[in-house]
């Protein structure tokens, strides 16, 4: 049977649009080089793409469907119909490709989705042409052996056109368009700004002044979080500023962006609604606005974009309470004595969480040793703890460990050196531009100096503790925002008060309410004279006053000399009324023990805690009980909350997500210091005596009191510790990275430090434990506090044999040290 429809004229007719495709690059070039508008026809045809695409999608898929009914009898009654569908479908595909390329080139689409859509589209068209050719072969030349390939090609084309269609839809409707309605993908669109605004109640004709303020407040918050990066004093793209009333309504280089009362014609609304790939889409960087955010802006413009005077004084950022607050404790419950647990229990009820069984003795002991003292328990200590039959032995052992003052101090030196930017060697020391506070810090930790005193001595220091606020004085000129007085303001802000003044020390912050002049006023407290204010490195010919960040805490006498000002600063900041300072420290300690703060990041205490009550209670209890850090640690470490099984995260970002739900301590890697000290004690010292930069026992050196081995927190930084995460302490650092890196792995696999300690250690162990079986048991007890399981023993024994060589022992130790069971605090 012949089919008249499959003749060459038709074929060439469908090739014609293909020629059009080839001319499109030239069009693109015209558009790029010339300033003239593109000829309207091209744009018009391009916009016909969405119309044209439905033909090939429908026709080819239907053709493939009908083809199924012809299996067994190729020349069925359906054949002419199928052929017609294919011809029209392929023609449509080629036309669609042509229009699609016009659309993509002329209207600024781009991105991965476009690429996939485009190439599947072009691929489908080309496949389609092949399909016509095959059909021609079969129908007109009776090459029946082409039937199977023809059908295969038809199905592939049908599939291709569907895939192309899907990605096309993703382009216009968004990538989650299809998947977002699936029941397991709900709640995808989140709002970055707290939408504590009930849009329905704003639909009324006339908005009250209060509602107007609220509405524009929300709009400004959205602008601040999503637009200020490029559209505020700091950076003005396209001549558009969105950080004050005048500029918002003035618009940018292409005119007004907001037409009050007419969201449809407001350019801003158009742009925030564009798909992310579109060249005009806003925000052009970062995430697109959520649906809620877009509706708030749209509603605001629809209501005439009201912007009452005085709105600017309304904060758009969350600001934490300054004053302390002591929440009432929930009523005592059976099994929950620790106030922390009562509050966590409340929290669990709200979050529909339930308590799990506390961890076993062994896990608990390992935790408190590492968290409180930074070292592993010895096999004897494991045994003693296991055989301790007192019902409150966990509390007692926490007390016992905290009483080991030197071990406690050596361990917490790591945390405080990071936070206070104190190191034994480093930039600035050789030129006397930096001062160490090591002696003072060690003594303060050892005697468990009350935290208010601790802070007072840092802020209003003597010679021994002045290093923190003196900063690092570089030779030569430095940025105005990095003079030592401003460093002091930033560091005190970050470490002591949990806030970020870094932006505000250069210009009014667009991540908080802090203003340039407030940062300078605070920095002036640390200055001999009054600093001249510079905005982004340009002096503005003005001096700021001398003030605390919160005037309600007290007034600094701006005429006083530096030491008087520092004295006032210290007195005012440590008062109980400064609840913020105590929330900051309890949050840091909580984070050290639990792996995640109540507030994250711990340097941004304006963020919302996962339990405000718990944070407030811990802070006020801390203040009521003499600012006792050890007492705080004891409270946390003896809580049932601390003893819950540990939690792991697949994605480190989930840890700092604002929707984080507390379930228990978060697993983390041993720090460089914890890892090193464990290796040094059990295998062989990693560092030499001469690397020790601070020896707490140098003056009292006696048999009982000396360093058992060079402790990692007391040696100069080196490649090994650095690879494992000890920071360069040029700037304050309050967080260690828990992720491993290639450089770290290379250091552990291949580095001389670990390798030579393992070599020497293997020798020592072989002398002590020549028998392979005994050695295996002993090293498992030392490193893991347990005997090997049967399988582990078999593998180890297979490798080591009865009388292992030093090399075998060395390799065995290496493998054991890299196991997660050793590497993690769990």
């Amino acid at each position: 049977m012949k089919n008249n429809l499959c003749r060459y004229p038709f074929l060439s007719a469908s090739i014609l649009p293909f020629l059009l495709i080839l001319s499109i690059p030239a069009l693109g070039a015209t558009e790029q080089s010339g300033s003239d508008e593109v000829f309207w026809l091209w744009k018009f045809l391009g916009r016909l793409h969405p119309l044209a695409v439905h033909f090939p999608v429908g026709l080819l898929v239907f053709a493939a469907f009908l083809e199924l009914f012809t299996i067994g009898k190729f020349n069925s009654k359906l054949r002419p119909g199928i052929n017609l569908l294919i011809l029209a479908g392929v023609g449509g595909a080629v036309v669609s490709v042509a229009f699609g390329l016009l659309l993509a080139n002329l209207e600024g689409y781009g991105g991965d989705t476009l690429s996939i859509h485009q190439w599947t589209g072009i691929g489908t068209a080309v496949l389609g042409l092949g399909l016509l050719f095959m059909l021609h072969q079969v129908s007109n030349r009776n090459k029946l052996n082409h039937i199977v390939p023809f059908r295969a090609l038809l199905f592939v084309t049908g599939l291709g056109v569907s895939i192309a269609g899907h990605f096309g839809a993703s382009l216009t409707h968004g990538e989650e368009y299809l998947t977002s309605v699936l029941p397991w993908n709900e709640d995808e669109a989140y709002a970055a700004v707290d939408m504590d605004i009930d849009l329905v109640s704003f639909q009324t004709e006339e908005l009250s002044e209060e509602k107007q303020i609220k509405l524009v407040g929300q709009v400004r918050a959205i602008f601040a979080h999503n637009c200020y990066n490029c559209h505020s004093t700091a950076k003005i793209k396209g001549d558009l500023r969105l950080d004050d009333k005048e500029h918002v309504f003035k618009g940018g280089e292409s005119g007004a962006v907001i037409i009050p009362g007419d969201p449809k014609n407001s350019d801003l609304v158009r742009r925030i609604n564009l798909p992310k790939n579109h060249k005009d889409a806003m925000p052009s960087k970062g995430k697109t606005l959520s649906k809620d955010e877009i509706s708030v802006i749209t509603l605001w413009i629809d209501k005439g974009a009201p912007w009452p005077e005085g709105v600017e004084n309304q904060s758009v950022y969350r600001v934490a309470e300054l004053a302390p607050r002591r929440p009432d404790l929930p009523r005592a419950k059976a099994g929950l004595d620790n106030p922390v647990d009562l509050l966590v229990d409340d929290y669990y009820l709200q979050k529909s969480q339930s308590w799990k069984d506390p961890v076993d003795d062994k896990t608990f002991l390992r935790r408190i040793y590492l968290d409180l003292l930074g070292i592993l328990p010895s096999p004897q200590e494991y045994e003693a703890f296991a055989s301790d039959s007192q019902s409150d032995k966990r509390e007692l052992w926490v007390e016992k460990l905290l009483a080991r003052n030197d071990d406690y101090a050596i361990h917490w030196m790591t945390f405080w050196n990071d936070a206070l930017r104190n190191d034994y060697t480093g930039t600035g020391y050789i030129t006397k531009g930096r001062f160490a506070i090591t002696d003072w810090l060690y003594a303060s930790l050892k005697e468990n100096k009350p935290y208010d005193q601790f802070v007072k001595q840092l802020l209003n220091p003597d010679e021994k503790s002045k290093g923190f606020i003196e900063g690092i004085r570089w030779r030569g000129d430095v940025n105005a925002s990095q003079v030592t007085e401003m460093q002091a303001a930033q560091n005190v802000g970050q470490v002591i008060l949990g806030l970020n003044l870094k932006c505000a020390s250069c210009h009014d912050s667009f991540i908080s309410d802090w203003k340039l002049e407030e940062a300078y006023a605070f920095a002036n407290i640390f200055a001999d004279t009054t600093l001249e204010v510079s905005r982004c490195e340009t002096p503005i010919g003005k001096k700021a006053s001398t003030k605390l960040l919160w005037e309600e805490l007290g007034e600094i006498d701006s005429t006083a000399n530096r030491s008087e000002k520092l004295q006032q600063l210290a007195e005012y900041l440590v008062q109980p009324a400064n609840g913020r300072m105590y929330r900051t420290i309890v949050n840091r300690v909580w984070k050290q023990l639990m792996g995640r703060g109540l507030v994250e990041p711990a340097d941004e205490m304006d963020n919302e805690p996962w339990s405000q009550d718990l944070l407030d209670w811990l802070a006020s209890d801390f203040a009521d009980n003499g600012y006792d850090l050890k007492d705080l640690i004891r409270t946390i470490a003896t809580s049932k909350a601390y003893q819950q099984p540990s939690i792991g995260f697949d994605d480190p970002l989930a840890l700092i997500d604002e929707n984080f739900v507390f379930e228990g301590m978060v697993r983390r890697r041993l720090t460089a210091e914890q890892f090193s000290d464990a290796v040094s004690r059990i295998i062989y010292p990693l560092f030499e005596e001469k690397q020790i930069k601070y020896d707490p026992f140098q003056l009292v050196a006696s048999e009982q009191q000396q360093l058992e081995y060079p402790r990692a927190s007391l040696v100069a930084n080196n490649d090994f510790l650095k690879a494992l995460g000890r920071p360069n302490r040029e700037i304050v650092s309050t967080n260690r990275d828990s992720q491993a890196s290639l450089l770290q792995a290379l250091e552990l696999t291949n580095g001389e430090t670990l390798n030579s300690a393992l070599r020497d250690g293997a020798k020592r162990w072989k002398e002590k434990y020549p028998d392979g079986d005994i050695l295996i048991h002993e090293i498992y007890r030392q490193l893991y506090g347990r005997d090997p399981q049967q399988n582990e023993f078999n593998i180890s024994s297979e490798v080591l044999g009865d009388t292992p060589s030093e090399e075998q022992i060395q390799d065995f130790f290496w493998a054991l040290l890299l196991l997660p069971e050793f590497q993690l605090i769990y």
Partner: protein
Amino acid sequence: MKTDWKRREFLKKTSAAAIATMGLGTPFTGLLSSCSGNQGMPSTADSVILLYMAGGMAHTETFDPKKYTPFRKGMESNEVLSTFPSVPTVLDGIHFSEGLEKIGQIIDRGALIRSYVAADLGHILHTRHQYHWHTCYEPPQSVLVPHMGSWVAKELGPLNPVIPPFININQRFTVGEGEELKAFHSAGFLGSEYGPFLIPDPTGGLESVRPPEGMNTKRFESRNQLYERLVQESALGEYGSDYQKESLKRSMEQAYILLNSPEAKAFDLTEEPKEKYDIYNTGRFGLGCLMARRLVDEGARFISVTTEYEPFFGWDTHENGHTRLVDMKKMIDSPIAQLIKDLDESGRLERTLVIVASEFSRDMMTEGRPDLKVKDQVEVPDFIEDMKNYGMHRHFTDGCSMLMFGGGIKRGHVFGKTADERPCKTVENPIKIDSVHQTMYHALGIDPEKHYEIEKRPFYTTPDGLGKPVMDLLV
């Protein structure tokens, strides 16, 4: 991300599609990866070799010679312009200082830049200027700032997955100001994963990637197997999805692959034929160049080779400037020229950007710049009696020379100009460090506006994302 389409890219894509669809069997994924490139940004380079002249290389004594003023006892200091005669290069009318003949013969394969202007950082301190050169940010900063090599490592990742993406050759941190040097040899906030892989001495380069001393391949292999088996058995196996564990395991595997890979041979200079080795071997710097070439051959991403900074050594001439520069030029001339030749002959120069640079220049008289002098650090007598005073001993920031080759850089192009008379400062086309960085990022196809949110504020590859690529240098 910028999404406009460039015509050239479009043509490339169209022809790729045409070719691909000719063989209908080609899977589309293969096609996509070949044309999606680097997030839509076209690139002209895949790798960078930075040859760093640490300590301040005087332009008038190297790539931008002025009038030769030979030594005479009692000559006026102010009279001294260049202490070497100049020699012609392969480019018409372009001369280099004596001792750089070999680079003179290959300068037609790259661009000569005579107008780099360093920043004003007040009292001159090498490590601060080096920090600025390598990070584009003036120290100190309130966050830890990444080295340019770390940005490249972060944005592009390794070119060959087993070669660390950022390799730093030659700088030791045990020398003077070592702590200050560490401050910018760092991935900063990008995370230690993107930090430099340090090879302090190229002759010992192999050690860095060889299984530890006394360990043969077989033993190394079985040690790793033991580790894998014990991980399987570990009582904590249930925590298998932990990112810490995963990242550790991944990193361990990566390290294992590198240490065991044939590519690790690239670190072994003894594998190089003797004649070639000898051409490069002018000491650690020359061998560093050789290692850089071998690593680029195996797919390294960013390599920095330095003449090494140590106060008052190398290019940091506070006295005996003339005599010491004879040696310094010997140290760099042959290996740099050979590196370019080798890369060009193997075709790798096409996609490898080589940069020769220094933090600033030097001059006999001016400390800082003519219109903004800073405190002198070197006593310069009015009249020179002693050879040791004959040379460029002060730190000069207003005109420095740079070379760039390959990776999209024009061939035989001369850019910028300094005055022929003292102060020999930049008079045409001054370029600053942010343009240098952006030129490199442009060649690599890294978005000029690439940034991360650090402490909620945007942190760009260059301050505020400023600085434009010097398009005039690019093909």
